[in-house]
């Protein structure tokens, strides 16, 4: 096959892009019928043209927008995946339930008293002064622990459920 001149390539590409006038287009098509070299080159460039035309838009995953929106303000992120957050929330919920059941059934009522530090046997050099006694009430400690758990559960519920819910609702409303 002979080398095709640059002007022929230009003509072919203009034809493929649909930029030729009707007259030029007709003349070019006639040339194609009579010129084997031009026809061969035409099919090469047409193959490239058609292949690239089929190269259309690609689409990202379905959660793309949600992912962008949730990362706009990283400071309000929980620092763990939603799945892990929910698992932790479930764990805190179970611990709370068990604590409340034990507390209401009086399981800690008997666990009260005083811890007398003087009863601990220590070498004499450490016990020159009288050590104090510490009152101990398991009921009271359990109430504090349940209160702390409630606070943690609320924060987790807010970060893993409430904030994503209201953010998604606001996003879908604005669309």
């Amino acid at each position, binding site marked *: 096959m002979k080398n095709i001149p640059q002007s022929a*390539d*230009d003509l072919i*590409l203009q034809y493929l892009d649909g930029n030729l006038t009707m007259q030029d287009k007709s003349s070019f098509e006639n040339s194609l019928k009579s010129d084997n070299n031009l026809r061969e*080159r035409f*099919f*090469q*460039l*047409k*193959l*490239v*043209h*058609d*292949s*690239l*035309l*089929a*190269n*259309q*838009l*690609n*689409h*990202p*995953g379905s959660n*793309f*927008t949600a*992912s*962008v*929106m949730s*990362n*706009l*303000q990283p400071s309000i992120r929980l620092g763990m995946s939603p799945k892990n957050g929910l698992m932790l929330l479930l764990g805190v919920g179970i611990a709370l339930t068990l604590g409340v059941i034990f507390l209401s059934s009086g399981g800690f009522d008997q666990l009260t008293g005083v811890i007398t530090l003087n009863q601990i046997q220590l070498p004499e050099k450490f016990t020159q002064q009288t050590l104090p006694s510490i009152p101990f009430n398991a009921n009271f400690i359990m109430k504090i622990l349940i209160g702390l758990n409630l606070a943690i559960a609320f924060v987790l519920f807010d970060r893993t459920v409430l904030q994503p819910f209201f*953010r998604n609702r*606001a*996003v879908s*409303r*604005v*669309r």
Partner: protein
Amino acid sequence: MIDQLEENRLLDRILDGEQEAYAPLVDKYKSYAFTIALKILNNRPEAEEAAQDAFIKAFHYLKTFNRQAKFSTWLYRIVFNTAISYKRKNKVQMQSIDDVSIEYSGTSGGTLERNDKEEFVRQAMDKLSDADRLAIQLYYIKEFSLEEVAGIINQPLNTVKVRVHRARQRVGDELKRILKEEALTL
């Protein structure tokens, strides 16, 4: 569909602090942004990460967007630069040609099987430089005008025109060589 007026209203609302107004813009441009990143990175997860990163950057730098250019062109240039920097950081592993996600499907006639034609054009495209390949690919995505392609890759319009024209010729030449080699091996 969001028109130019609605887009400007959304931009105003975002600048007034209404973060949720950004979601429709992300929805509108995500496929274009992802496509640009994919053409550069040839890796879907990386391209998705780069495109998301670019949207977040655009959100934070929205105050610097002067609205003389189209928002889309400004955004696509951020996507282009982000994807290029991802590539420079060598975050992308070299892939075998089978993993390359650019899809072609020829429609020309002839005796070649469709998959063979796709493969030959792909091989020919691989001989182009990154800039030429991206320019030609974006040019053929009908949603991108030549002016927009020039804006995205930050080159003068005439340079891009010449680049696209020569790139197509080079792919044609390369294709001719590949087909000739194939014919000899038969």
